[in-house]
C-alpha cells in the first residue's frame, strides 16, 4: 500500500490534536508515515503509533528552533525522497502552510491549502475546501507531482488505530539557505488553561458589544462552564480588550467547532470567514438586524450583560 507522509506538529514531544486528525485522513489514502522534528521528536512515537502511524521518522537539531521554516522544509524534503509517498499532509497552521508550499515548489508538485476534508479518488486525493468566507465549497486535486495538502484543524475525528509506529532516524543535510532567518528570541505564549482556540469543540466569542477588557470576564465565565475556548472579534482585539491570538476571522484564527457562541458580534464578512463552518452557531446580540442572525441555529435578541450571566448560571444549576 502507498505511504502517506504526515508532518507532525508537536510541542516538545506532545503531539497536537490536528496531527492526530491528519492521521485519520492519511489512513484513507494509504499507510501513514509520520515526520517529527526538533526537541522531543522521538517522544511523539507512542501517540502517533496509537493513531495509525506505521513509521515515525525523527530528527532533532538545534536548527529547527534557531531558524525559521527552511530547516523543516529541508527535513521534509529528505523524508519525501526517502519514502516517495503518495501524498504529503501538513497541518494548516501559518507555519505549516509555509513549509508545505516550499516543499511543493522543490519537489515540483502542486499544493492545496486549508482542506476541510480529504477522500481517495481515482486520480489521487480529492480535497474539499471552503472558500470566499465559506460561501462556496470546492473540490480540488493536485494534478502534478506528489500532492501536498494542508488540512485545517477539526476536519476529521481523532481515531484510535494501533500500528507499529517504528521509530527511524531521518538523515537530514541542511541546505545553505537553512540558516537565513535567525530566531533571536522566543517568548512562549502563557497558557490560559483553556482549550486551544482552533482545536476546541466549543468556542465562546465576544465582540465590540462586550464593551471593555474587564467585561470579558463574563465571556470567560461562560466559556469555563462549557469547557470552551474564548474568541474575540477584531473590533474587540483592536480595542485592546483581548489578545490578538484569540481573534477569530480572516486575519485571525479560523475555527470550526461543534458550537460557536457569538456575543456582541455583528457578523461582518471577515468575521464569518473564520467561523461560518462551525456546526452549530448561536448568537446573542441586542440588534435584531445584526447579520450574525442570518447564520444562527439559535439567536437571542437581547443585552449580553443580561443573557450571558443568566445562561452561565443556568448551566451551573443544570450541571448541579
Amino acid at each position, binding site marked *: 500500500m502507498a505511504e502517506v507522509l504526515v508532518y507532525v506538529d508537536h510541542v516538545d514531544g506532545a503531539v497536537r490534536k490536528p496531527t492526530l486528525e491528519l492521521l485519520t485522513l492519511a489512513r484513507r489514502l494509504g499507510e501513514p508515515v509520520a515526520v517529527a522534528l526538533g526537541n522531543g521528536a522521538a517522544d511523539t512515537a507512542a501517540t502517533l503509533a496509537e493513531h495509525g502511524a506505521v513509521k515515525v521518522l525523527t530528527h532533532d537539531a538545534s536548527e529547527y528552533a534557531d531558524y525559521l521554516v527552511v530547516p523543516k522544509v529541508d527535513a521534509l524534503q529528505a523524508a519525501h525522497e526517502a519514502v516517495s509517498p503518495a501524498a504529503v499532509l501538513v497541518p494548516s497552521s501559518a507555519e505549516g502552510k509555509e513549509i508545505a508550499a516550499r516543499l511543493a515548489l522543490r519537489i515540483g508538485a502542486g*499544493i492545496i491549502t*486549508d482542506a476541510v476534508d480529504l477522500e481517495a479518488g481515482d486520480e489521487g486525493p480529492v480535497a474539499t475546501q471552503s472558500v470566499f468566507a465559506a460561501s462556496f465549497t*470546492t473540490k*480540488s486535486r*493536485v494534478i502534478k507531482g506528489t500532492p501536498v495538502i494542508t488540512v485545517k484543524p477539526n476536519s476529521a475525528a481523532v481515531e484510535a488505530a494501533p500500528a507499529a509506529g517504528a521509530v527511524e532516524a531521518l538523515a537530514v543535510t541542511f541546505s545553505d539557505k537553512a540558516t537565513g532567518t535567525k530566531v*533571536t528570541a522566543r*517568548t512562549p505564549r502563557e497558557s490560559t488553561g483553556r482549550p486551544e482556540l482552533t482545536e476546541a469543540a466549543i468556542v465562546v466569542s465576544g465582540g465590540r458589544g462586550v464593551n471593555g477588557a474587564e467585561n470579558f470576564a463574563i465571556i470567560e465565565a461562560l466559556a469555563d462552564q462549557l469547557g470552551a475556548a474564548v474568541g474575540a472579534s477584531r473590533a474587540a482585539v483592536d480595542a485592546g480588550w483581548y489578545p490578538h*491570538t484569540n481573534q477569530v476571522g480572516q*486575519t485571525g484564527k479560523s475555527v470550526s467547532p461543534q458550537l460557536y457562541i457569538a456575543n456582541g458580534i455583528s457578523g461582518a464578512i471577515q468575521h464569518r470567514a473564520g467561523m461560518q463552518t462551525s456546526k452549530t452557531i448561536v448568537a*446573542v446580540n441586542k440588534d435584531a438586524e445584526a447579520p450574525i442572525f442570518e447564520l444562527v441555529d439559535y439567536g437571542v435578541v437581547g443585552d449580553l450583560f443580561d443573557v450571558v450571566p443568566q445562561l452561565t448560571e443556568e448551566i451551573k444549576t443544570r450541571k448541579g
Partner: protein
Amino acid sequence: MSLRIVVTVKYVPDATGDRHFADDLTVDRDDVDGLLSELDEYAVEQALQIADEADDAEVTVLTVGPEDAKDALRKALSMGADKAIHVEDDDLHGTDAIGTSLVLAKAIEKAGFDLVVSGMASTDGTMGVVPALVAERLGVPQVTLLSEVSVEDGTVKGRRDGDAASEQLEAQLPALVSVTDQSGEARYPSFKGIMAAKKKPVESWDLSDLDIEAEEVGLDGAFTKVETADARPARTAGTIVKDEGEGGKQLAEFLAGQKFI
C-alpha cells in the same frame, strides 16, 4: 546606496461584494468590483515607513493581474510609492500560487531589489503561501508574518506572533518580509498623493519580458485543478427569540437539547 524595495500587491474582488466562480472555475474577476487587497495596504504602509527611515530608498509596487489591477497600483502610488510595475498577459488567466510566485520572482529580479514586502495573505485566495514561495524562488531569507518590522544597516528585524510563541527574527538583506494587519494602520492617500500618483511611472510587462513560457502559467500550467465549486447551501433559518427576562434560560434549554450541556 539606495534601498530598493519592491512591494507585491494583489488586486482582488471586493469581499463585501458577491464573489463567485466563472464557468472555468477560476475566480470571477469580471462581474465584481475589485480593489487593492486590504491586507496589502499594510505591506505598502510598512514599505513606506522603512523607506522613510532609510537615507535613500525607492519603493516599487508590483502586481500580477488583469487590466483593472492598475487600480490597485494607483492606490499604492497615491499612498506614496514611487513607481509601479504591472505584469499583464492573457496567458496568465487561471494561474495558481506556484505560477504566481514564478511570475512575481522573475519580475522582482528584473526590477532589482534589496527588500521585498508582501501582505500576509490575499483576501480572495487567502492561501498565505505566495511570500514563502517567492522567497524560495529568489533564494533569499523569508521573514514572514511580522507584526513589527524594521531595517537597519542591511539587517531586517521583526516580530512574528505565532501560535505557540512570539519570536524575534533577524536576517540579512536581500530578504523578503510579509506583514500582518497588526503591523500598523495603513495611511489614507492624501489629495496631494492622489494628484502626484497620476504622474508616477507605471511599467507594463508581459510574459515574454520575463522569459516565461505560456505553458508555465495560466490554467495550462496549473499544478492544481478545481473540479467542482458549489454555493454553500443557505443555513436553514434558526430560531430567534427576544429576551424578555428568560433569554439566557431559553438558550440553556436549546443547548441542553443539542447535548452541549
